[in-house]
């Protein structure tokens, strides 16, 4: 009985320690639990994979450091995928605190695959005005982003001799921590008739399912799990050929499973103890009565 009492009144710091350990351990010693790609994520991967080499893709990366662990792996995987397939990504962000993250990501991937800014890809950076930016890009990208992130004028770039507006893109992807998916869908993809996919945080994934069902989105990757699935798809198809290492999300998924399992187990144990305790108390009360 004392044990039961002790478990029920467990100090929360013990729980914190176990949580910390179950996150840290799989990072150092991966468990390699299987990541099974869902059709939602395959929807994005297959669409991009089917595009002919040289096609242009618009990627809106609308998140900030707070959602970095969930969304940055996805962005990196997609960029790697684009470069593997010789597609030309145009990357921009509608979030003021985003560009730093995106810069690191795209420069890393471009360096890995030997791609050149302004020719094989373009990083447009941030511009103030959310809706106005999307609407502007629908008519002209070089006019909306007069210069790219590095301050070079876009109108003279080779990449913008090939395309100038959203409708010439072959695919549109929004990696979003907020409500920008609806924005890109309503003002970018739908009116310009460009197929669109989205990646979003785990919390907001549910609200985009209706668009997926209505086929307005070709695919949806939710949270770190979605990113892990994309990394997995990329790894299975091109990993060996291009020597791509497993990304942060796949490595994070083990920790994710561990913590979930721990929480569920702790709830079950707590309830068993709770059950024993209530039975015991009832018995005591009956005995005293």
């Amino acid at each position, binding site marked *: 009985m004392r044990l039961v009492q002790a478990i029920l009144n467990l100090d929360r*710091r013990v729980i*914190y320690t176990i*949580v*910390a350990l179950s*996150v*840290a351990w799989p*990072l*150092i010693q991966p468990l390699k639990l299987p990541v099974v790609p869902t059709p939602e994520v395959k929807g994005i991967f297959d669409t991009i994979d089917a595009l002919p080499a040289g096609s242009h893709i618009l990627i809106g990366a609308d998140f900030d450091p*707070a959602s*970095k*662990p*969930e969304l940055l792996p996805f962005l990196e995987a997609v960029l790697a995928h684009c470069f593997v397939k010789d597609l030309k990504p145009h990357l921009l962000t509608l979030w*003021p605190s985003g560009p730093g993250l995106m810069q690191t990501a795209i420069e890393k991937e471009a360096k890995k695959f030997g791609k050149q800014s302004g020719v094989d890809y373009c990083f447009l950076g941030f511009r*103030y005005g959310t809706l106005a930016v999307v609407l502007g890009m629908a008519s002209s990208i070089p006019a909306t982003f007069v210069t790219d992130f590095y301050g070079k004028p876009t109108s003279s770039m080779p990449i913008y001799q090939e395309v100038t507006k959203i409708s010439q893109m072959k695919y549109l992807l929004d990696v979003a921590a907020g409500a920008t998916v609806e924005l890109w869908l309503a003002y970018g993809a739908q009116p310009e008739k460009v197929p669109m996919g989205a990646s979003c*945080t*785990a*919390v907001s994934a*549910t609200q985009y399912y209706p668009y997926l069902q209505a086929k307005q989105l070709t695919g949806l990757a939710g*949270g*770190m*799990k979605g990113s892990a699935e994309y990394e997995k798809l990329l790894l299975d198809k091109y990993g060996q050929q291009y020597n791509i290492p497993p990304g*942060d999300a796949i*490595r*994070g998924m083990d*920790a*994710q499973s561990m*913590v*979930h399992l721990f*929480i569920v187990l702790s709830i079950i144990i707590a309830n068993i103890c709770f059950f024993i305790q209530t039975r015991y108390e009832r018995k005591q009360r009956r005995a005293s009565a």
Partner: protein
Amino acid sequence: MTPGEVIGTWIAVGLTLMMFSFIYRDNALFRIGEHLYLGISVGYFVNIQYWQVIAPDVYRAIRVDHNYLPLIPAILGIFILLRLVPSLAWLSRMSFALIIGGAAGLTIPNNIHGLFLPQLFETLRPFDAGLAGNLNQIIILIAVFSVIIFFFFSLEHKRLVGSASKIGLFFLMIGFGASFGYTVMARVSLLIGRIQFLYYDWFQGIIWPWFQVAILHRAI
């Protein structure tokens, strides 16, 4: 890595651990972190407000574009500052009245159009979705109905209304349970991100190479 990045990483690691120490218990390190964070965030806030709002929308509009319209909200903004002068504090009501009145006007049609009508139509779908779909549809109808009864304030929760609202509460708890379990994933991935930073960026990026160079090489 540039020196700025190395110093930055060390500081970031220190601050991360300081903020984490909060979960053990309140301590001086956390208080330092908390107060530092407070000051930096307000400093950042000032910059954002100035560079993203006042500079382009007021200063630039008036000086460069010769558009004097932003003077009106600027004056209304100054009225808010007059809150500090008790005898003139009432002037700030003009500004509040404009902001809140306008926001109220926006709320009505936008909420009805964006949320209310679509949700109502979504609830009232004909039973034509096959057996499983129809069962789901019936569950949805019961849940919506009983939840609305739960929020009905004009009737005491007794007898029929009472049992209906009990069902409503039951559904509410199922809904909240699902939400809770669903959010766990997002929260845990944040922690994973932080620990990845400590492990990859700090330990593998700085400590381990340094350790190899400084200790192992010498040992060999």
